[in-house]
């Protein structure tokens, strides 16, 4: 990147078996990526309570990414099926509360898809940079 850009606060929840491995694969293959994302390892995308996404956003995240095994490839056979429903509901729900749905994405990356992981990170980071910093909630002074 030529111009100096402030990093966005992006947090990613990645399942251990596929996406975390995919991110490892991307590393092993030296697929360059933006540096904004911080990865939190979870066993399965099914472990990701939508509240983690909400909590991260409320804590000041500019973007939250969840990535798991492709549907039907879950290490625990079913976890990502539940995740898919819960996260889709969340994604549709956020804008009602005034939160830009583009600040949250969920996707599937397998352990072998290093290149795909690179694309996901690059695209999501770009998307968040385009959105700019997330709006802060202002405290009303009338407690």
């Amino acid at each position: 990147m030529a111009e100096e850009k402030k990093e966005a606060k992006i947090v990613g929840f990645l399942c251990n078996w596929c996406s975390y491995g995919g991110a490892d694969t991307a590393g092993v293959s030296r697929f360059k990526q933006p540096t904004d994302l911080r990865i939190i390892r979870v066993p399965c995308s099914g472990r990701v309570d939508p509240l983690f996404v909400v909590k991260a956003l409320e804590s000041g995240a500019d973007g939250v990414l969840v990535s798991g095994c492709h549907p039907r490839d879950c290490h625990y056979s079913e976890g990502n099926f539940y995740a898919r429903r819960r996260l889709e509901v969340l994604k549709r729900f956020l804008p009602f509360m005034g939160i830009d749905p583009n600040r949250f994405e969920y996707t599937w990356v397998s352990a072998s898809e290093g290149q795909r992981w690179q694309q996901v990170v690059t695209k999501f980071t770009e998307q968040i940079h385009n959105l700019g910093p997330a709006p802060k909630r202002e405290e009303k002074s009338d407690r």
Partner: protein
Amino acid sequence: MVMSMSWFIPENEFDIFVKNLSKKRRLFVPVKENSIVRFVEFKDGIKPYFEKQATSSAKNTIFPQTETLFRFEYKKDPKDLKKFSVEISETIEAPETVVLGTRPCDARGFLVFDKVFLNPKHPDIYYQNRREKSLFITMTCTDPEPTCFCKAVGSSPADSLGSDILITKVKDGFFVETITEKGEKLLNELNLKDGDAYSKEAEKVKDEANEKLESPFDTKGLSADILKLFNTNFWEKELAHCLSCGVCTYLCPTCYCFNITDETSDSEGERIRTWDACMFFHFTLEGSGHNPRPTKAERFRNRVGHKFSYFPDRYDGMIACCGCGRCIKSCPASVDIRKVIIDLKEAANESA
């Protein structure tokens, strides 16, 4: 107490009065938002609402729902990481504050707070600081509501106890009288018209207001009755429809219970004090997991007992209820504390 002095504000000058009040101080006024009224900090553009009793009490003005007691930071010795010190910074926030538009019941609520927080042996400095810098301008309740029962607990719609200034609406404007020195000092600053001419009319208004209200129950012997029923199933049946939420306690002008928790992040943190409610399970949950008040029956018993028995027994007979009726009006399950007390007395009588 000082000799009462009086002033008068014509109806059309009241807005200016409000604005002037806010000039040097933080001013709280009741404001209508959606269908409710609550006390918020006055800013330009805010329209105070004095017509009805506010939905929530004014206790947030000097007893905020959340306050930081102090901040702390762990500091490590860079030479020996095992050595560290905790740096504490106090955070007493007590700006000069005026609260305009309280009702006698609201003002009286703070007397209950005072008993607890201004206990001479160990005063609560946070409360004390704010209390000393706050001033309450109360409005006589010319139109008490059917849910009001301040008379039953020893007050009245024109009670000035706890207020610094009392305002009574008269035909052409507002009759203003000082109750405390603090109040007088403030009013002296404001250049108001003399109010003597209206004092008679104001007295009449007050008398009328007082007459409008009846006392639904007698508190005599109530404390003993509560203790008598302590271990009966009266509470469970009487409060079966209670939802165990915090509406009553959080709207109540006299409920002062709080919780203290630490919130840390990295090496820094703050100790915060937040409102708590005896209607909550967590209120008396012990570290062991045992809870002496496991169900809402015990919790409600505590609420009634505290207000009408334990508190008065401890503090010279002062009832920890100001009869504002907010808990009745806002209760989602229509729990009526007056009825609870009436039923309670009846039950105590029967069991005698």
